[in-house]
């Protein structure tokens, strides 16, 4: 008689510790991207790669998808995969809208955001 325990996801503790440490290191790495102020394509590549590595290990090991049968894996990963289509469409549409606003509505292409330091300094000047 098989007990319900054997049906569950029981794995050696070691793999959880390894993934845990890995998640810490990758999180530290993605924070380092901001701390050392990497910009442009380098920033996007690093942040997205680190994000996918973290998400992959959480789903595969912590949520046990790696050991689940394909029927369950496809049920949980398939529908969200279709969302990539939505994201792609919205990105194309967003790009078009932004271009139209710059080209036909005279919005300023070179506007620069205020930093908190500048904002607080301007408040003090008013007083």
């Amino acid at each position, binding site marked *: 008689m098989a007990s319900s325990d054997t049906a569950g996801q029981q794995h050696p503790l070691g793999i959880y510790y390894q993934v845990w440490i890995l998640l810490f290191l990758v999180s530290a790495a993605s924070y380092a991207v901001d701390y050392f102020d990497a910009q442009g394509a380098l920033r996007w590549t690093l942040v997205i790669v680190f994000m996918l590595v973290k998400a992959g290990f959480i789903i595969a090991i912590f949520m046990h998808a790696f*050991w689940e049968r394909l029927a369950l894996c496809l049920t949980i990963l398939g529908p969200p995969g279709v969302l990539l289509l939505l994201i792609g469409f919205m990105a194309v549409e967003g790009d078009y809208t*932004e271009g139209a606003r710059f080209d036909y509505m005279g919005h300023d292409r070179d506007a620069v955001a205020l930093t908190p330091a500048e904002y607080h300094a301007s408040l003090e000047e008013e007083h």
Partner: protein
Amino acid sequence: MSEAAATSIAPNDGVTGLVDDWTADKQAYHVPWGKAMMWIFLVSDTFIFTCFLTGYLNVRMTTTQPWPPQSEIFALSFGGAPIPLILIAIMTFVLITSSGTMALAVNYGYRRDKFKTIVFICLTALFGATFVGMQAFEWTKLIVDEGVRPWGNPFGAPQFGSVFFMVTGFHGLHVSAGVIYLLWVARRIWAGYYDKKGFEIVEIAGLYWHFVDLVWVFIFAFFYLL
């Protein structure tokens, strides 16, 4: 009988298993029904968060006003010069730590070590509550000190505030609900409710908790870092 048949199935046998599971004219998922239902719920929750993040992508792309500098807005000073994004980094580490303790709780649950399971579930809930506390601090700082509102802020695109409050608010709500859920599960384990039923419940609660951590991975990358 069906229970024994379910457990004798190999844990993972690829495409052959997929075809078997869907054509055998019986249950398709060889997991406890509660776990299958939690997965279905998490898939629907994925759609909600993806809609939020896709909406964010769209307003961020279409707004012609400059996006406020997150790195400096979420900086924190410990006496000296402000350290960029440090609060969010600490929150990320707190949530990852809680995911680790949750994984250990699931493991000890299946080993039927009730005491350690309860300890690690409570630790997870404690880290979760810490996260929500830090988020409350972050919201207060942004609302009171920086004047960020859902309809505008002093730094740049007004959409920054609406996305921030909606996305982190919804995520924080999930963490808060998770803390309550975990404590409720811990209390039922303590009361011996699962002694005969088995401890799948810890794995099911764990799935929810890891999912909350997973959502944060994406929020951290897209909202705070990019």
